[in-house]
């Protein structure tokens, strides 16, 4: 039932190569979930999120300083190792400086037929942001048109928006199922579904996801009851990490991560001008900490999720040196504490120290058990 999704995660490059062969289309790698994928999809392109390989590596050391997060260095390393040799292009938008550096190093050392950097407001909630974002979205669309030779018509954009919205809707449905206790699907399995969505054709993904949603209620081997926790952070590309956490005695029932719910939580709301609609979706999405400046929407969003999914505690999955998230963790921890939700931070590096993750997770879960008693 879930093999399809796990297989894509574990054989992501084979999937993309196969897709290219099957469709004759182009594949573009993107570095951050603020890149409006719908526009690429409308142009017949498969957008795939660039992820790291989680192997010890020294490929990126001479390009990115050690004070930058391991995730951005790992992504670049995968490119330098040639794992993404099927890409026709790369795209990045203004998100964090770490990824800005990874993108620039990529374009210097791995030249591809197409590369594009799209502007993106930091103050997503500002009155002036939509106009600027619309202009940048328009420039990106024109650049893709020039490169592919294909004019983006409203029908193309509508098709892409609908395909993406459908996938988002289905993922939200999947998350709803996690509210049951015990949930019908484990956090590790959900992670496979969401991660595979970031790197595969949404139409194909949605078909399989519909089948999964249909089959899940009849599932004979659901997860057993365990401590319900939420994970919060930036990227996690490893199913193994989730497995370790859940094996320690937890059910991960919800997340606020950019390889998780932040990726798909909101839809494009239709507008006459399709590009404005797409632009607005990215401004309105649950913000990354860096984009959450004018109002602190993120804190409330995390708290509401923790309540809605009835979690006993929150585990921060903190990529080492990820400054965006380091800014928010103290404020989040304080707010959750005020609301009687204990927290704990696990620091992530390129490679995992399984023993330490297990021990620390167990200690956190024990503490949660005591709290419950």
């Amino acid at each position, binding site marked *: 039932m879930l093999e399809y999704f796990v297989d894509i995660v574990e054989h992501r490059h084979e999937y993309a190569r196969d897709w290219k062969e099957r469709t004759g289309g182009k594949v573009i790698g993107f570095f951050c979930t603020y890149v409006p994928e719908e526009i690429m999809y409308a142009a017949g392109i498969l957008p795939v999120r660039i992820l790291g390989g989680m192997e010890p590596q020294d490929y990126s050391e001479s*390009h990115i300083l050690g*004070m930058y997060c391991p995730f951005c260095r790992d992504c670049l390393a995968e490119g330098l190792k040639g794992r993404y040799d099927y890409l026709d292009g790369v795209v990045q938008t203004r998100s964090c*400086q770490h990824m800005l550096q990874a993108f620039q190093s990529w374009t210097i050392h791995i030249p591809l037929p197409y590369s594009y950097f799209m*502007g*993106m407001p*930091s*103050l997503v909630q500002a009155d002036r942001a939509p106009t600027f974002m619309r202009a940048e979205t328009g420039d990106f669309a024109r650049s893709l048109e020039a490169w592919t030779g294909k004019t983006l018509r409203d029908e193309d954009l509508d098709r892409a928006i609908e395909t993406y919205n459908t996938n988002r809707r289905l993922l939200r449905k999947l998350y709803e199922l996690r509210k049951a206790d015990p949930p019908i699907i484990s956090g590790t399995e959900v992670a496979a579904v969401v991660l595979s969505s970031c790197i595969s054709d949404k139409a194909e993904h949605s078909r399989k996801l519909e089948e999964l949603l249909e089959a899940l209620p009849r599932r004979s081997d659901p997860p057993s009851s365990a401590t319900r926790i939420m994970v919060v952070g930036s990227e996690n590309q490893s199913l193994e990490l989730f497995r370790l956490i859940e094996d320690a005695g937890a059910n991960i029932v919800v997340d606020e991560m950019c390889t998780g719910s932040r990726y798909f939580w909101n839809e494009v709301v239709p507008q006459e001008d399709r590009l404005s609609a797409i632009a607005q979706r990215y401004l309105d999405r649950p913000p990354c900490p860096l984009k959450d400046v004018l109002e602190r929407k993120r804190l409330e969003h995390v708290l509401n999720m923790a309540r809605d999914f009835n979690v006993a505690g929150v585990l921060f999955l903190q990529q080492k040196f990820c*400054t965006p998230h*380091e800014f928010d963790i*103290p404020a989040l921890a304080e707010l959750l504490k005020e609301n009687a939700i204990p927290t704990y931070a696990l620091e992530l590096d390129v490679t995992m120290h399984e023993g330490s993750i297990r021990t620390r997770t167990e200690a956190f879960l024990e503490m949660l058990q005591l709290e419950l008693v």
Partner: protein
Amino acid sequence: MSDLYKTERLEAYDWGKELRLKHLKGTGTARDEGRFLAIGNMNFPKELLIGLGDFEYLAGEPWSVSINHEGGPELTAQCLEEVEKRGYSRDLCGYMRVYWGSMFLGRGAWGPFPTPDLVTFQADCDSRGKWYQKVSEHWGVPWYCVEGTHHSVDGTTKTKEHALQYLLDQYTDFIEWLKVTFHKEYDYGKLLEGTANAFRSRAYWGEVVQLQRAIPGPLDYKLLLPFYMAIEYYAYEDECVAMMKALRDEVKYRVENQIAAVPNERFRVFHEGLAPWYALYLFTYIRQRGVNILGGSHNYNFLLPVQKPTEDGSFAPEDPVNWDGVPKTWQEGIRFRAMHQLYVEKVISDTRLRTNVLRVSQQAWKAQGIIFMYDRGCEFFNIGQTEVKAALQKEGVTTMVYETNRVDSAEWAWPQVQDACDSFLESIGVPQMVS
């Protein structure tokens, strides 16, 4: 090592230092003297505040340097500790941690941390938005944030018109917000004066930087410091314009009369990155060996917006400075300010552009090598630092690297830095020092 040139004290230097102290200490007395106190990051477009009346501005970055420099290691350590105690990571921006610590403790280098009337900030590097989000929450006074990010990394100095307009709209929105929030008339004439002053200060700075191409260099790294800070901090003031003009005149005189900053100048190098403020003896160590540290792209890049970029959008040092652009209306004034912001931001974050800027500057200023500081206290200045270094090294430029944190001396390892310095100096041909 015998002297090759005569040297003289730089009169304007004292003015530069005095003006810095006047502003930093003035933050403590401003409100009693009937001026309002705004606090925020240094490169916030402070010109926009002028129309509201007399003010003092507490700029975060020089405030942190003052904790480090005048407050001393003990106060710095207390500040850093306070921030860590509140759960913030040591990886975060060094300036911000020192500043937050000072704010949480309520202590600065010369007395209490002053209470502001408003907080204004510009989100550009990843830290500034979150830095002052916390500051505004701490003080609970009116606050406003504009964005100053550059949105392209195409290797050129080009700026999209809508990106410029985005900043301009925010500037005018901010002015409207000031009027409504403080129920005051806004003086657009003052705004024009301020923006024209900022242009003039930067244009004089442009000339000074061009004059620094002379051999011997009329200035060295230490002598540049109060001025390059001045044009980011209070360039909009009459006094700053007067000081920069005096500096330009004095530097011109020094060039015409071969008056050197380093009397035994035999070698010239650039320094990329800000200084480790607690270890400025590094610069003396290098200077003593007859090496003039001429500055770096962060000191110099401020000159370009008052000059004409080349046709292809790349960088070339221009001489003379283009004085035609002095704003005649406040609209032109804020446009110049926005262009300046986008340019400065772009040179730092666009790796290809900075490589180009540095390549051209290194040749034009006849620098034999480049020292790169990998600053663990500032991610922003480190964007592309390794790539720029590698690209220039490949082209035959001699380079040196040292890693530290500009404000946290716990990360300073002088023996290693000294070793790196010695081999770098040797490789550009500086004779070994006889101990």
